[in-house]
């Protein structure tokens, strides 16, 4: 949808991002994120999917400076972000807000909802014209209204709230400083399905209404399909496929994306499989440890169609047109 628009001027442009952690009990390092490039256009919702340990959360954390970046560049609104300059960092951190997975873990248990929502304003020392207590209260109420919380929640504590309500507080808090980009890291995976949709629809509506972009990090492919204009698939620290969501889900090119899609339990597929042969691709083995990287394609040890070349030669990103990219020798 926004694919051409963002090509002109992406809001966020990350190039060759590398994040390394010291390997425990060994010499050397573990590359949690291994050369990730991604961009998010203004008003675009971009999905980053992958299984646990693939580096999707670390990518998000590295963008906002929560973990140190070993290599690579981050441009925001056409400006190179130097994560070491405090002043620039403050502005950047105001423009980019994060909503985390576990709303109980990300809210201060001793802070009532109203104060939690207003806290970012104090952290960023912005007044937004909110000179008096009363004006701030009105702003908090306004934000609570945006995310669908009744005014009487103002004085309540996080433990008095349900999971869905807490996540609404997390979103209101992130939106308090009027960010241009929201990084939502598994924002609904801790919630029940009937509540998930409420939060997903809320995020979708707000991104249009307040026109912010969103990097949506999740492991649930169906949720990403519903939310995102474009989707990036990560495996072992690398982006293995990227395309517009409708293209990626209808016509996946990388064998990992195909296996991932076929592994998702889905009502329609499940009912269809009862009348015929199941088409599920079952991968062999587990995600390999990143302490012993394989020389070729990282997916080769589990790939049903791997050949000798895959084990020795690392595949380059292959462009399949219209922004569709896959990192596989067989994708062309």
């Amino acid at each position, binding site marked *: 949808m926004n694919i051409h628009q963002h090509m002109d001027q992406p809001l966020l442009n990350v190039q060759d991002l590398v994040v390394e952690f010291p390997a425990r009990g060994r010499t050397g390092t573990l590359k949690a994120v291994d050369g990730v490039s991604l961009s998010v256009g203004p008003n675009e919702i971009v999905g980053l999917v992958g299984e646990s340990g693939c580096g999707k959360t670390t990518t998000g954390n590295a963008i906002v400076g929560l973990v140190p970046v070993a290599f690579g560049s981050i441009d925001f609104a056409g400006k190179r972000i130097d994560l070491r300059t405090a002043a620039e960092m403050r502005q950047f951190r105001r423009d980019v807000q994060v909503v985390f997975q576990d709303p109980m873990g990300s809210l201060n248990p001793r802070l009532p909802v109203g104060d939690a929502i207003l806290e970012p304003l104090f952290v960023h020392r912005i007044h937004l014209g909110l000179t008096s207590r009363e004006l701030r209260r009105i702003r908090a109420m306004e934000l609570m209204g945006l995310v669908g919380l009744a005014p009487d929640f103002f004085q309540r504590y996080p433990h008095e709230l349900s999971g869905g309500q807490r996540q609404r507080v997390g979103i209101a808090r992130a939106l308090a400083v009027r960010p241009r980009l929201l990084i939502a890291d598994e924002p609904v995976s801790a919630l029940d399905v009937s509540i998930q949709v409420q939060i997903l629809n809320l995020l979708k509506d707000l991104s249009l209404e307040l026109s912010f972009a969103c990097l949506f990090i999740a492991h649930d492919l169906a949720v990403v399909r519903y939310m995102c204009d474009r989707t990036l698939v990560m495996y072992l620290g690398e982006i293995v496929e990227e395309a517009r969501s409708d293209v990626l889900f209808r016509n996946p090119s990388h064998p990992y994306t195909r296996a991932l899609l076929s592994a998702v339990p889905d009502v329609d597929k499940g009912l269809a499989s*009862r009348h015929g042969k199941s088409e599920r691709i079952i991968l062999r083995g587990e995600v390999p440890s990143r302490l012993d990287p394989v020389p070729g394609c990282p997916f080769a040890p589990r790939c049903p169609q791997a050949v000798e070349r895959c084990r020795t030669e690392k595949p380059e990103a292959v462009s399949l047109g219209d922004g569709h990219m896959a990192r596989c020798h067989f994708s062309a």
Partner: protein
Amino acid sequence: MNIQHPTSNSLPFQHPPRRSVLLDVQGLTVGFRNGRDDVIVVRDVSFRIREGETIALVGESGCGKSVTALSLARLLPEPPAFYPAGVVIFRGREVLQMSPAEMRVIRGGQIAYVFQDPGTALNPVLRIGFQLKEAIRAHRSRADARQEAIRLLSLVGLPDAEACMRAYPYELSGGMQQRVVIAIALACQPKLLVADEPTTALDVTIQAQILDLLKVLQAELGMAVLLITHNLGLVADVAHRVHVMYAGSLVESGDVEQVLAAPSHPYTKGLLDTVPRLEAQEGRMQGIEGAVPSPRELPPGCPFAPRCPQVEAQCRKTMPRMVASGKGHIVRCFCPLSEVT
């Protein structure tokens, strides 16, 4: 027994043979005693499981599905748990009346459990081999426990069973840990395997492996499976019959195809509409407004009435009874959705 893991195609869906009833739950009601305050969390739940069949119990968190599952082998501590009404008949015997000695034979021996988080199901300071042999020795011969343990580990598809015997749980990945938990559950050749969200803590590609394993094992060993899940996609994949639970009560029961393709209860329909699908469904998904009521604050009539899009006056006053909605399909609703929708 040779378990070959299919690399490209999983086992096709298998319809169960019509066998005798293994477990018959009638009117099961479970409460918790908290001082002078009793809370009923499961009300009047009835269902049957036949030998070799896979039954799914679905619902959102707090709806009582795990409590129902745990009470089948009376794993809830009594007190605070108590059973004011209902019977659980397992292979012709009433479980709720059994003595502790009789219960020990049933638990693990005939009804085995696999829980959501394998990390907490295994003892972190004991080797896998010890934990597996412990389960075998509790119900079966002591002599060849080691041999049997190794056989079980290969049965669940762990590559190097000998090495695995010596490993501690933390040395294994989540998927491998869950395989170990399944091996322990299978140690005594149970008639019924209760799998409570067995794959929720696992990644999807690993989840697919574990589900495939359960299907293969079930076909080989002929055990019945009670699958507790909130994931309707899983239900469509593996179960024969499904029971939908809401706020402690069953609201709809039937064959999976009927219930998922043409739900009769507004809650089931709402639940189906809130599940994002992989197949493109354009447009906006509808959530279910509001939240599940707490068992302490249940409304007087139908528990779903406050959230129901087609609520009527009588729904708020009287609890509806289960009524037939088709062949083997029952629903607890005054105005069930017609099959044509």
